[in-house]
């Protein structure tokens, strides 16, 4: 099952991933992290297709993506 992990302490709450996710499954938390930012979180993790778009767009490299080598991916990276 594909999935992402957002390290909330790297996140600066820029929301770029929220806009980028094709599955629209990322949203902003109501809580703040150590630096005082509302951080991103995945609200429907099961829908994740592991496309890595969120990770590619995250300026703070806060997102890690797991997937299966055999699975569909939007593009080689």
């Amino acid at each position: 099952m594909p999935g992402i992990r957002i390290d909330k302490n790297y996140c600066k709450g820029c929301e770029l991933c929220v806009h980028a996710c094709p599955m629209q499954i990322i949203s902003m938390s109501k809580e703040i992290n150590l630096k005082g930012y509302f951080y991103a979180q995945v609200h429907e993790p099961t829908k994740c297709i592991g496309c890595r778009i969120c990770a590619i767009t995250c300026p703070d490299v806060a997102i890690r993506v797991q997937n299966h080598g055999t699975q569909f991916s939007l593009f080689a990276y």
Partner: protein
Amino acid sequence: MAYQANTVFTRPASLSETITHYCPGCTHGIIHRLVAESLDELGLRERAVGVAPVGCSVLIYNYFNCDFLEAPHGRAPALATGFKRIRPDMIVFTYQGDGDLASIGMGEIVHAANRGEKFTTIFVNNAIYGMTGGQMAPTTMPGQRTTTSPAGRDVDLAGYPIRMAELLSTLRTPAYVARTSVHTPMHAVQAKQAIKKAFRLQKENRCFSLVEVLSTCPTNWGIAPSDATRWLAENMLPYYPLGVFKDPEREEATS
């Protein structure tokens, strides 16, 4: 999870764990990662020396796991020249903003490119002086408001934005010169390809290489990060066409 998952995207080894000082949504961070991934994938980290500019990315050395030099404003290409001439076996790159490279550092970049110095320049064009608080850059768009052009850049007084990739491509000395952007994930992927190629050409000791990357500055543009990517697409892309302008491998320009 019942079955083993592979990590298909994670922090590149060339990037340190340090949280950057960049503003939320600033695409400097993306570009850092693309450089780091390229170093990783080409196996260059251990013989890489970066040259930091003066600009928002002055602290870039805190974010990389490779050696770094910190240059005076605009002079990174001169430092890179000095170092690379003595250590042609090392991989040298400069990372420079538009104020740094296109304004005060114009002479240094043109001449390094023209001498064909075998280093790589990552040129981050965000159409503004980020670090000093949003003054007009040579790359600022016509009509764009900045702290030193509060009524918008007046092309009658300040001229039009300088297109560095085009300018450098007039030089006869072989080089790789491309312009890319990171305002969408797809563009970031293409930017990565250009950056990686630039480093590969250096690894092969081929030529000078420069990748211009269009980047956002939400803070000084005064808009939210996602609006900034849209602003870039609408305002900068038409004036700064993406593509490869010069390629020692004679690929066609795709601008």
